Structures are given as C-alpha cells and as structure tokens.
C-alpha cells in the first residue's frame, strides 16, 4: 500500500479508475455467464466502451488542447468505415485475428491522418470558429460516405459516387460500401474483453501523454499561448500532435463500434451532429480534463436511457426538466439561500461522504 501512496495523485487516480473498470468487467462477465444479463444490456457493453473511447479522445482535445471540437463523431466515422471496409474487403483473404488487429491499427491510423489533415487549417482558428469548422467536417464525412459505392468482383475494385448500377459490376461481385446502406456483414469481432482492454489502453496513453514533456507543452499553450511561444515552444507542432492523438483515439472507438454491429450506416444519430454533441456532453458532464470522468459519464448516460426505455416517449421532456431543475438548484439565489439554511450546500453534502480521519 505504501508503494501506491508514493505515486503522484494523477497516477493513483488512473490506477483507481482502471481498478473500477476491471471490477465492473468481472461483474458483467459473471452476470453474463450466469445468465443474469438482459440481452439489451449485453448489446450495450461494447458500444459503451466505444463511446467512452471517443469521449476520452475528445477530452484530450477540449480539456488539454483547450479547443472545442464538434467533429469527433466524424473521426469515429472515419475509423469505423475504413476498418470495416478493410475487414469486408479482406474477409476471406486474411485469417480472423490478424485481420482484426490490422483493422484496429488501420482505423486508428486513418482517423489520425484525417485528424492531422483537418487540424492544419482548423487550428488556425479559435473558439467558436474552430467548433463550426469541425462540425462541418463531421457532416461532410458522413455525407460523403452516404454517396459512396464500392464493390469488388473478379475484375477488381469498382467505385462510384452515383449509384450501384453505374459501377458496372460483374454478377459475381460483392458490394462493400453500398451508399446509404453502408457496410453490411462486417465480422462482429469486437468482444467486451477487447473493448475493455482498449479502453484501459487509451486511458493509460492519455494519462502518460498529458504528464509528459509534450503534454506539459500542450497545457502551456492552452494556458497562455504567447507565454508558451516566448519560452520557445513550437506551438503549431504540439497543437497538431495533440489533435491527431485525440482523433486517433476517437477512430479507435469507431473501429470497436463498427465491428460490433452487422450493418454500419452513417446516419445523423450514430456519426453525425447528434453524436458529436452527445460525446461532448459526456466530456463536460464527466469533467473537462478528467479522463476517468468521461468514461463514467459515457457509461451512465448510455445505460440510463436504455434502463428507462419505458419512459422513452417523454425522454426529451424529462431531460430538459432535469436540466432546468439542476440549474435552478445550483444557481438560483433563493434556492441557494434555502440550501444554505438547511445545510444542503455542495460542501456540506460532500462532507458527509468524506472519510473520517482515523488515528
């Protein structure tokens, strides 16, 4: 235990988070093994990890680079489609395990490449402008994929941006990307175990990154760009590095996601604006700059709607009411006064959960 105490705070927190994830993983596996897990929950296990990954990636961008990106669903989309494309195209040519590993690497690398290319123009912008351009990027990716038709037959690969017929494929050909119908028949290789391992990997990578020489430089640029320049930091280089890593992690989430479902389509709900905002909500709710928080928020916010499916008709209504109530509870002067009088301040409530000093 003394070894644990010697580590610095952030490392302790990282190990704590990994511990909780492992415990949850074991609990879920046991519940699954004994048949106590509903098929609904079972179906959510991998997507939750995928969303968590994207949230961790976005948190690196928002919390440490200090730039608001609304396009991370786009990077997830790139990772998902490039890897699913690969898996489909080489389904018979490469054995399962190496193919999946290559798919993971490829999807991550493609997302990183797109992240890098997008970052070059985008990081010249600041604040709202950057958010708008990344938002547009996410939409463009989604729409481009929706008009892509790619198939293979004995003559090789066919490609069209118009429709399936204009590719002139032979009868024995198979479609890989079929426009709005996306990619169907991707091998479902993302297991819960792999998902959890990748999530832990991402947490370790991000933690190590932000606590390294490069990470310090990125934080310095976020805190004060002019001062960062005057101590000789190459601002553009480190902004690009951070954004690329952030996109790569989101892409990894995409690969995981794509290899968990049979038919992968690019719709607003899974890769569009809605998704980007959802991921941002995970990041903000979990705490900006807090990677473990992102995972917790992703898990809670993905599980809750499914558990409360009975109320689905009123979901948005309840959601907004809860938001309003929470805001009032936290900020309305009259309520703050009432809370103060009844010992319900945040400090008082938190105090009840604090461990008592043991001598």
């Amino acid at each position, binding site marked *: 235990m003394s070894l644990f105490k010697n580590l610095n705070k952030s490392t302790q927190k990282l190990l704590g988070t990994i511990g909780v994830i492992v415990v949850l993983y074991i609990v879920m596996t046991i519940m699954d093994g004994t048949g106590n897990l509903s098929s609904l929950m079972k179906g959510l296990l991998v997507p939750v990890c995928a969303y968590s990954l994207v949230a961790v990636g976005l948190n690196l961008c928002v919390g440490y680079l200090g730039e608001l990106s609304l396009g991370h669903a786009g990077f997830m989309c790139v990772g998902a489609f490039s890897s699913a494309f690969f898996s489909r195209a080489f389904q018979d040519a490469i054995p399962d395990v190496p193919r999946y590993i290559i798919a993971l690497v490829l999807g991550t690398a493609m997302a990183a490449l797109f992240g890098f290319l997008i970052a070059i123009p985008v990081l010249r912008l600041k604040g709202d402008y950057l958010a708008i351009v990344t938002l547009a990027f996410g939409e463009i990716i989604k729409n481009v994929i929706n008009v892509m038709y790619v198939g293979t037959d004995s003559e090789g690969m066919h490609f069209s941006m118009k429709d399936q017929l204009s590719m002139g494929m032979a009868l024995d050909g198979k479609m890989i990307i079929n426009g709005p119908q996306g990619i169907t028949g991707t091998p479902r290789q993302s297991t819960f175990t792999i998902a959890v391992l990748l999530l832990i990997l991402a947490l370790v990578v991000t933690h190590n990154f932000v606590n390294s020489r490069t990470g310090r430089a990125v934080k310095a640029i976020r805190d004060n760009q002019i001062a960062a320049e005057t*101590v000789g930091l190459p601002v553009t280089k480190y902004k690009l590095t951070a954004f690329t890593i952030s996109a790569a992690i989101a892409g990894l989430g995409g690969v995981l996601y794509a290899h968990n479902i049979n038919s992968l389509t690019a719709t607003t709900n899974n890769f569009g604006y809605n998704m980007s905002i959802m991921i941002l909500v995970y990041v903000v709710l979990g705490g900006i700059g807090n990677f473990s928080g992102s995972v917790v928020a992703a898990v809670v916010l993905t599980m809750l709607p499914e558990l409360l499916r009975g109320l689905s008709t009123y979901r948005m209504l309840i959601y907004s009411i809860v938001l309003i109530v929470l805001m009032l509870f936290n900020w309305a002067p009259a309520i703050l006064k009432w809370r103060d009088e009844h010992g319900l301040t945040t400090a008082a409530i938190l105090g009840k959960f604090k461990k008592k000093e043991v001598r």
Partner: protein
Amino acid sequence: MALLEVTNLGISFGGLRAVDEFNLTIEQGELYGLIGPNGAGKTTVFNMLTGIYKPTDGKIFLDGKDVTGKKTADINKAGVARTFQNIRLFGDQSVLDNVKIGLHNSFDYGTATGIFRLPKFFKTEKEMDKKALEILSVFGLDTSADILASNLPYGKQRELEIARALATNPKLLLLDEPAAGMNPNETRDLMNTIALIRKEFGVTILLIEHDMKLVSGICEKLTVLNFGRVLSQGRTSEVLNDPEVIKAYLGE
C-alpha cells in the same frame, strides 16, 4: 561585439507610429534600463525584440545574428527570454512544471517515449526535476514546487516568471516592469534577486521599470523613450540629470 544591437527599429499600427528610429546597443553582461512615461512604447519595443510584433523598419542583431521578424519561439532559442507586465504564468500547472516548460528545449525525449514511458522518460524527467529545483531554489521557490502557479502570492508569481524565463537558458533577459505592484520591501528584495541572477546565470538584463529607486539603484545604462522616440541614452546618472528627461517626467 555587442550582445544586442538594434538599429532604426520602427513599427506602425495603421497610421500610428508607435516606435520610430529606435537604436540600442547592449554589451555582454550589462544591466540596462528602458524607461519612459506611460504609452511611450517600451513594451512595444519588447514585443518587437521577442518577435511578438514584426517591426515595420529596422534590424535587430543578437550576438551578430539577424533575428529581425523571426518567430517568437526561434528568437527564444537564439537566446532571448522575457517576462510580462501582466503576469503570464501557466496558472493551471504546478510551480515546478512551469519551470520544466521553460526547460523544454534543453532536454529532449519524443512524444512516443513519453506515452510508452520508456526508460529515457524517467531518466530525463529526473534530470529536469533536479535542474528545475536548482533554478527554483535561487528564488526560494523550491519549497512551493508542488503548488499551482496561480496560487502563489503576487510577488512570488513575478519571481516564478523570471525563473521560467531563466530556465530557457537565455543570453539576454527582458524584464517588463518586474517591480509593478510591489511594496518597497518587495522591491528591495527584487533588486537583490536581479543582482543575484545576473551573477549566478551570467545573463545580460534589459528591464523596463517605473520605480526610479530600482532603476537608479541597479541599472548601469539607460534609454529614455518618449512618444516612441529615444529622448536620451547613456550612463544612468547622466541620463537622469538630463533636463529633457526631467521635463518629460515632471512637465515644464
């Protein structure tokens, strides 16, 4: 050869000529003061010397090399470090990390080494910690290495900014109003600190200051700016007795 040689430096913002025909020569090891009434263009000169503004005219030579219009980061690598009038620390990071960011270019390991925690990471980080603490101890800040920079008292924040600038191993250190907002005791401590770092780090110092006690106490030479032009230049005692300078400061 002079360490810093500035010839005919000038900058215009639209129709406003903020600095015009500014000349300055600083020899190795000097402690040089840049003074002048508010709005005279002192900080603008600093911003041009560090590449934050690109001068419209003129040349800046550091150690014989032309650094005019270069990027801020490159000018720092060439040997110029500075502090700011309104403190610009990396407030969300620890005191130690602030100095370690200053040491960024003196130590090297790649991003991948940091992510995968290769042996070089631990070795280099250890060396960085040691060096950073060494610099902090000059300012007596080594005992508060772990607290957030924004939580330091004001005077200590100014000193940390100097420590961070020194960590980049500069030949020339620019201090923009180091005594601003300090009480007389703190100013006296600061004078000692400046004298100390000059000796310890062998650095040449150019400082902007309003506190005449500090200026006349430690600066060997002075340049007085008024309305963007050099009003007087030379040894401290002579400049401060120049009737033109007295007029600019006190009025006729």
